[in-house]
Structures are given as C-alpha cells and as structure tokens.
C-alpha cells in the first residue's frame, strides 16, 4: 500500500503549521482576531488579510520548543509588507528572550511587497538583523522552502542567512525571479517561460547540488516535518573563520563553473553521469546521487 501524502505545496500556511507542529501545541501571536492589517493596501484600493499573510507563534516539534512562522503564498504572493515584516522580525527577536531550541521559517515569498516597498524594505533590514542576532546567540534557524512562490528577493537572503535550508524539488531559491532576469538581460539570456530552464537554474535540486540548500525532501508535509525535527538545535558557527571559508568556497565555485552555460554543464562537472535525468528522478534517488557525489569528493 502506498502511504498517504499530504502535499506541502498545495497546503495553506495554517495547514503547514498544523502538520509540522505537535498536535495542540501551537499558540499564535498577533492572530487574525487582532486585525493587524496593512495600513497601505486600502489606500491603493486593495483588500487586506486579517493576518497580513503570515502566521507567527510558538509550538513544539517532538516535544522541543520552537518559534515558527509560516508565510501564506496565496495572499499577495507571500510578499513582505510592513505588518507582515514586523511580525516576522518580532518573532525572531523574541528568540533572544526565550531561547527556543529553533526558529523555523516556512518561507513562500516573492520578497518585498512592492505596494508598500519602503516599509517592506525597512522590515527586511530588521528581519535580517534579527536573524544575525539570533545566530550570534547560538539559536538555530531553519528555513523551509516548498511553496508555489518559492523564495525570492530579500526572503532568499534571509533563507541563506539561516543555519540550514530544507526544500522540496518544487521550491525555488534565487534573488531575482525569472521574469526580472528576462526583462533586464533579454530573452536570449533567460527565457522565463522555459520552466525546465527556470528549475535547472533556481530549482531546489540545482541548489542542493551546488551546496546552497542542505536537504531535499519530497513534497510531503510529514517529510518536511521529519527533516525539520532532525535539525532542531543544529546551529552552525557564524564567525570570521566560517565567513572566510564560505568566501573561499564561492571563489572556487566561480572559477570552476564560470563558463558553464547551463545547470546540466555544472552537474556534469560535479560528476553526475547522466545530467539529463536529474530533473526526472524522485527525492530518494536524488539524495542517493548527492550522497555518492559527496562521498567521492571526501
């Protein structure tokens, strides 16, 4: 019998939270009844959401206390406005006071909400600072990407500043989105309608192979839950040595793949025998491939 799967991609932010946290442990901060809605959207003739598109609160995973946020990708593409950003920054800042075993961020966002861009950009700076303060205090931050909007713009910087990133193949991670790159560089450089190209460039498998995300899971809420549970309390050092090692890795990567024209060229140079198949294989087979490649490198 095939066990039932509950798609993380298809689930709402609240359903993702319910599936990831231990049953009955969630306590929401600043919930919908507080009606802390965007002060900017009504001026533009746009509807608001009671939670401004993000759910924040505390709960438990395997009995361990966590702070957790879930962006609702269905509302304005999960984009960060003033209230949404303040809720996220406030949640991460709270970690310094209560020292949870982890801060878990379920990201599903195109970045800053352009309708309230200045407030959104300031919020992004505050979130970024809160992330680094929490990491400096040794609190583990876990970023999770598997929603329809992927993780773009400032949200992608937040994700890469966390200790660990967990994603499904459906997740994408990039600063600029496909349409932005096409608009700026031209369709010959990047055809945003070529979905396979988009996934070979920004998709989670590519990001895993080049070392920008840590864990790839299948699109299943339980699979995400298990991966998150395995990294609670798993904080990585954030000091000068770590920073210099990361810079050295990036310099090395640039010289190695500078003239690669496509993700498949990169994968072939990493030692993947059949790069054309990478897009087709399931998460388990893909992870076995990654293990083999990383084992060979050691």
């Amino acid at each position, binding site marked *: 019998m095939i066990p039932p799967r509950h798609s993380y991609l298809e689930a709402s932010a*609240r359903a993702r939270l*319910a599936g990831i946290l231990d049953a*009955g442990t969630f306590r929401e901060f600043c919930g919908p*009844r507080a009606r802390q809605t965007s002060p900017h959207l009504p001026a533009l003739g746009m*509807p608001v*959401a009671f939670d401004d598109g993000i759910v924040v609160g505390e709960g438990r995973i395997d009995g361990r206390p966590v702070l957790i946020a879930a962006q609702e990708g*269905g*509302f304005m593409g999960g984009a960060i406005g003033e209230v949404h950003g303040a809720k996220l920054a406030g949640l991460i800042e709270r970690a310094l006071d209560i020292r949870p075993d982890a801060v878990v961020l379920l990201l599903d966002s195109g970045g800053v909400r352009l309708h309230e861009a200045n407030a959104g950009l300031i919020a992004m700076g505050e979130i970024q600072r809160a992330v680094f303060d929490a990491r400096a205090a040794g609190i583990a931050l876990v970023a999770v990407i598997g929603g329809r909007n992927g993780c773009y713009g400032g949200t992608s910087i937040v994700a890469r500043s966390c200790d660990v990133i967990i994603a499904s193949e459906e997740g994408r991670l990039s600063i600029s989105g496909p349409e932005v790159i096409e608009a700026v560089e031209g369709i010959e450089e990047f055809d945003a309608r070529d979905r396979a190209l988009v996934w070979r460039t920004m998709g989670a498998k590519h990001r895993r192979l080049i070392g920008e995300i840590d864990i790839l899971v299948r699109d299943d809420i339980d699979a995400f839950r298990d991966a998150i549970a395995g990294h609670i309390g798993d904080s990585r050092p954030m000091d000068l040595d770590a920073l210099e090692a990361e810079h050295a890795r990036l310099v090395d990567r640039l010289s190695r793949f500078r003239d690669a024209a496509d993700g498949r060229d990169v994968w072939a140079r990493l030692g993947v025998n059949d790069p054309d198949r990478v897009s087709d294989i399931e998460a388990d087979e893909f992870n076995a491939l990654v293990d083999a490649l990383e084992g060979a490198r050691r």
Partner: protein
Amino acid sequence: MERLEFRFAGRADAPAASDGEALVGVVGSGNLEVMIEQVDLGGECLVTVDTSINGFVETWESVLRDFMERHRLGNVRVSINDGGATPAVVALRLDQALANLGKPPR
C-alpha cells in the same frame, strides 16, 4: 474598495457566546477569507465585508441572508476580506468557516 455592514436578527434561542473562532480561505483574485467569531451580540449576527468589487450590496445581502437562515445562527460576528469571489464561492467559504468553528485548526 467598498465596506458593507449587515445586521441580522439571529435566532431567539441562540447559544451564549463561547469565544470560538474560525478562519478559512485566503484573500486573492476570485477568493476571500472568512472569519467567524462567537461573541455576545445580544443574539444578533453582525457581518462586515471589505470587498475590492464595488456595487454588489444586494448580492452580498442575499448570500448572507441565505447563510444565516439555513444555519439559524445567533451571537456570531462574520468578517470578510474579499478579492472578488463569486456568490457560490462566498457561500461555500461561509459554510466551511462554520464547519470549522470549535474544531482545532487544520
């Protein structure tokens, strides 16, 4: 944007408010979110609609009256943020919100 407010008499023997709440749906094009709260309104029902589509007050009134009469509600506050949902979608979301009232969030 248009804000609409409706008051319905509610059933005479409505149960006392129990501080329950339910939130369903997501605000997006053709979709809406519905929040139902159990509050003491002296038996009445209060509905607030914020909609991006102007000029459909009679349609909203019909859909909401039908909902109230079908379920014979009292002492509930319904709050709606609407991104242009059709009457059928609105009716389904209202029923979904009511079904979730008193259940743990899922």
